[in-house]
């Protein structure tokens, strides 16, 4: 029933920067009058411009990546956008900060631990951890709670494959994903902006859903540091903050984890954080979204358009209360 998408659409679909900039003619028209006097001025965002120069094509390519029927054929966001516009508070709270502050972030050696209610708890070297699994490309819609969105070609491992291999015991009901805590490398962690380390969680059945992956790459290459290298969670029907980055621990637990954002602002952030146009965030109506590189907003769809695959996980639940 599921139809594999044509493989050749992907990389050619990435709009060249020059082309997508031309689409912002509305903004341009408003500014044309001022440009004459401004022509001599240096653009005020040298840091962003600098970060935009890199990739794809700079970081190592990931070989032997399978395509997946779960990928969308929608137009992908520009690499330059998705790698310079990041919420990764460990590296600063401005969108441009992670691309700058994560430049020298060390992702090797990297340890990742499987803990809690599993048959074989163990700490792995990252490359050893990834080795047994086949990598798949998953082109997913991405929706941030701040109402911006994107389409991203992730490369990763189905979380279900990992869960099966580590053999959770009957006590394992939830999984907690823990990001690295290293204030020496992560300047954002020197302030108590959030409770560190960053923690996210999924119900075991959510983690086992075929859509859930641990991503190790994007756009054909390894993840850039600012997007959560070397390994991060991707749950495309939930708001982006559910996707914990630079993971060091995957803990199988019995009771529902309290995620970092739940601790920060309980009325605004619940455990589930499913994309839901009917349930507002106190700061943002969630009925619409704007994709990076696009001018006109789009209507947000239930579960970010993945209702067919995931609505059954929440059958009978009041999603207004379980936000």
């Amino acid at each position, binding site marked *: 029933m599921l139809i594999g998408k044509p493989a050749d659409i992907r990389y050619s679909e990435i709009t060249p920067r020059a082309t997508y900039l031309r689409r912002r003619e509305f*903004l341009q028209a*408003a500014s044309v*009058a001022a440009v004459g006097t401004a022509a001599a*001025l240096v653009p*005020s965002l040298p840091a*962003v411009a600098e970060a935009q120069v890199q990739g794809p094509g700079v970081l190592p390519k990931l070989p032997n990546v399978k395509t997946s029927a779960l990928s969308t054929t929608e137009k992908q966001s520009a690499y330059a956008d998705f790698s310079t516009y990041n919420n990764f508070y460990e590296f600063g709270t401005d969108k441009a900060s992670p691309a700058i502050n994560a430049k020298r972030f060390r992702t090797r050696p990297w340890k990742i631990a499987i803990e809690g209610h599993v048959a074989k708890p163990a700490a792995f070297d990252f490359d050893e951890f990834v080795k047994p699994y086949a990598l798949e490309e998953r082109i997913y819609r991405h929706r941030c709670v701040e109402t911006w969105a994107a389409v991203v070609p992730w490369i990763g491992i189905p979380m279900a494959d990992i869960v099966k291999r580590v053999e959770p015991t009957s006590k394992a009901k939830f999984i907690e994903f823990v990001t690295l805590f290293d204030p020496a490398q992560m300047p954002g962690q020197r302030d108590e*902006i959030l409770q560190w380390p960053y923690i996210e969680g999924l119900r075991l059945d959510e983690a086992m859903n075929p859509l859930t992956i641990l991503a190790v790459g994007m756009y054909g290459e390894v993840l850039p540091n600012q997007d959560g290298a070397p390994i991060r969670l991707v749950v495309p029907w939930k708001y982006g903050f559910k996707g914990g980055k630079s993971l060091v621990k995957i803990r199988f637990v019995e009771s529902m984890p309290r995620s970092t954002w739940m601790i920060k602002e309980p009325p605004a952030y619940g455990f589930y954080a499913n994309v839901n146009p009917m349930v507002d965030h106190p*700061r943002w109506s969630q009925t619409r979204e704007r994709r990076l590189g696009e001018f006109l907003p789009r209507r947000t769809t239930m579960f970010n358009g993945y209702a067919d695959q995931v609505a059954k996980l929440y059958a009978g639940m009041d999603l207004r209360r379980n936000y």
Partner: protein
Amino acid sequence: MNTPPIGILRRALLAAALVPAVMLAYDAYAGNLTANPVEYLENETGDWAIIFLIASLAITPIRRLTGWNEVIRLRKMFGLVAYFYAAVHVVIWFTLVSFFDVATMAEDIVKRPFITVGMGTFLILTALAVTSTTGAIRRLGRRWQQLHRAVYVAAIGAVVHFWWLVKADITRPRQWAVVLTLLLGFRLWWMWRARTLSRS
């Protein structure tokens, strides 16, 4: 009393105050407004509106502390520049953020405290801007000064709007709150001093 130095200073500062707007326009033209241009424009215009609002509130303390009376002639200019950035900020919200969707905007104003406060602040600033002409000053007489004291409310509103908008990192709104507290605190201290001096 058109002494050249303050006139030249005012023009130079006005030109400098408009540089951010020119640079934003250029960045819009050059496609340099980050991956989310609308959000970036809102953040920048909001920042500059607060900066110039604070600048306008710094004039009276400077005058009182230094005795340099002419500096008062910078106040209206800073206030109007703040209003210019606030107006661009609100126009972008009407157009590029909300696409003239009146129902959504009304809902946002009612439901989201940071927008409620932001809109209230903008209405106050609008009233102050339209009554900033010499004609209005003459017509309103004593009431002009009473009306323009509302700038204190607007400044508090602007900082609260910023504070409630951020998700987690309150560093920058907190900085403005400290500066604003100092500027308003100076006025209270000055009033209290004037009262005790006149009593003795």
